[in-house]
């Protein structure tokens, strides 16, 4: 068996498992875990937005919570004030987040590395404080809640988020669509430009790539992913709050992305999955699970900077006895792209 076919088989099993969650979980454990699975799917999109920037264009954003928050409020406010439905609220949330990213990104992507990380966090803080003080609109840190609209109303058939399974499958559908789109983009000629910029921005410019524009496009797309995550989370919790715009949320997303493995399409899903499950398990016995998360983060950066995806690739390589460095077969989802080397560019500084 080749690495590619093993990966493909694993992907099929994984997809089947995701589809089976609402039927299988109640047989094994509390239905509460269906909601946890849904939550993992949602948060993984926020981590995916970090991954798009760090793993594909080589920019570490510490401010993705801003676009999450805009997506969240976009969905909540459009439902509350304009009577938008689920799909309308989702679309407005995503568009709002992309618009915000388009504004902030035009300035932010002029900077790289530390400076980019700082300015993204600064922008998110500005909007965080603004959202806190705009209490009549945003509810500040208390937040605002709303009744979830129907996902689908067709004659007598009404699908409501109040039904746990409907909610799960709706979220799965949206998240899967986001990953599919993400996968298309990173394998496209545009994705080729992304990776060129990640690998070596100077050489990228010298083969004719507009580095600024390329980073900008990635930033806006990443804003869209974070926005989708935020909008879904708003519908999931029927709630939006400024607290989700704080930089700790951004930081957690970075941790998920890195634990999962940057530069791999589904890495963030596994990173978010592992850490959220860990949170749920540990927090039942010890409330200080963040201590474990912190330690795990440091250990991953130290000993496995390629994350779970890297471990998976090494496993595949060992199974098929081919050195990973020269395995360049077309890769299935979840294992694409070379290991990211974010520090490669950093060393070129003056």
């Amino acid at each position, binding site marked *: 068996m080749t690495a590619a076919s093993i990966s493909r088989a694993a992907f099929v099993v994984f997809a089947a498992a995701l589809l089976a969650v609402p039927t299988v979980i109640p047989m094994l454990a509390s239905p509460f875990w269906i909601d946890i699975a849904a939550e993992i799917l949602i948060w993984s999109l926020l981590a995916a937005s970090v991954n798009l920037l760090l793993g594909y264009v080589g920019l*570490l954003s*510490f401010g993705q919570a801003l676009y999450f928050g805009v997506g969240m409020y976009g969905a909540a406010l459009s439902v509350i004030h304009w009577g938008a439905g689920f799909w309308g609220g989702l679309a407005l949330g995503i568009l709002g987040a992309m618009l915000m990213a388009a504004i902030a990104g035009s*300035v932010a992507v*002029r*900077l*790289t*590395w*530390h*400076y980019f*990380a*700082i*300015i993204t966090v*600064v*922008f998110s*803080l*500005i909007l965080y*404080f*603004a959202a*806190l*003080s705009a209490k009549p609109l945003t509810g500040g840190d208390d937040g605002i809640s709303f009744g979830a609209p129907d996902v689908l109303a067709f004659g007598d058939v009404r699908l409501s988020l109040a039904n746990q399974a409907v909610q799960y499958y709706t979220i799965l559908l949206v998240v899967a669509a986001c990953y599919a789109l993400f996968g298309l983009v990173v394998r496209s000629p545009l994705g080729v430009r992304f990776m060129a910029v990640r690998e070596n*921005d*100077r050489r990228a410019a010298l083969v004719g790539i507009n580095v600024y524009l390329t980073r900008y496009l990635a930033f806006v797309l990443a804003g869209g992913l974070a926005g989708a995550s935020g909008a879904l989370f708003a519908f999931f919790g029927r709630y939006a709050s400024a607290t989700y715009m704080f930089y*700790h949320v951004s*930081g957690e997303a*970075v*941790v998920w992305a*890195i634990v999962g493995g940057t530069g791999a399409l589904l890495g963030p899903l596994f990173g978010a999955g592992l850490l959220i499950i860990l949170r749920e398990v540990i927090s039942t016995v010890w409330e*200080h*699970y*963040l*201590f474990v*998360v*912190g*330690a*795990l*983060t*440091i250990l991953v*950066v*130290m000993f496995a*900077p390629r994350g779970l995806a890297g471990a998976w690739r090494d496993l595949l390589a060992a199974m098929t006895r081919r050195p990973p460095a020269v395995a360049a077969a077309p890769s299935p989802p979840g294992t694409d792209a070379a290991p990211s080397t*974010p*520090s490669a*560019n*950093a*060393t*070129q*500084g*003056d």
Partner: protein
Amino acid sequence: MTALVLALAVNGLVWGLIIALIALGLSIIFGLLDIINVAHGDFFMLGTVFVLVLTMSTGSYWLALALVPIIGFAVGLVLERVIIRPTIRQASLTIVTTFGLSMMLQEGVRATYGAQPRRMAPPIEGTIPLFGIDYDVYRIFAAAFAALCLIAFFAFLTRTKLGTWIRAVRHDPETATALGVPVVRICAITFGLGTAMALLGGAIAAPITTVEFRTGVDILPFCFMAVIIGGLGNLQGTVAAAVLLAVLEGVVTSVTDPTIARIASLGLMSVALLVRPHGLFSGATR
């Protein structure tokens, strides 16, 4: 009204000097090791907690105040060796490791010291009249002591051999290596020093703030603002910016919503980041 504004300005000055001390620690770490230490705010928090705990166990705030920076230096040395040095090659990811460290410090303190915010009795009782308001004597002492520490730090940097070495490594690590400066050890010492300064800031501030595991989160953005608005690599600028920002925030708070002041400072910080050519396409020119 004017009295209130002036009192708030003085308050700002007190905080500004303390924050300057902490921000300087952040700045030397950033300038020398080229890492963004997200846990720096939590070092401040550690300082407040340690001074409170030590004061209770030894019975003397002054003894605790003397011990905390020493503990801070040791903590910094250990963390540099265990966490920073092994990951320094991935310079961009140190922001992630220090974020992990930040979580560990906060949760570690919450698990051991507790989540309850506490207040500490000021070691110097009494007030003096200032602009018609009874002002805490300790606050005046805190400002003076922080200022003294700042002066001592600059004297250390310019007058001692170690300080000269730190400046040399900061300026040009390659040349410094060539000249026989033990760069690796200087980096470790610098991290220890920066950490000690944050803890010292915490120890000074503990009697005028609440002591709990979360205070670092509030202080961190402020330190970054001071470092960046003051000009990266400009230590005097950091001090000036810290004091100015704190005084301004104090004054603005007296007339309007404090978050407006925060937003304005952050906006200023963005501008400072963008106009500074250092950040722009660094690496395009060799």
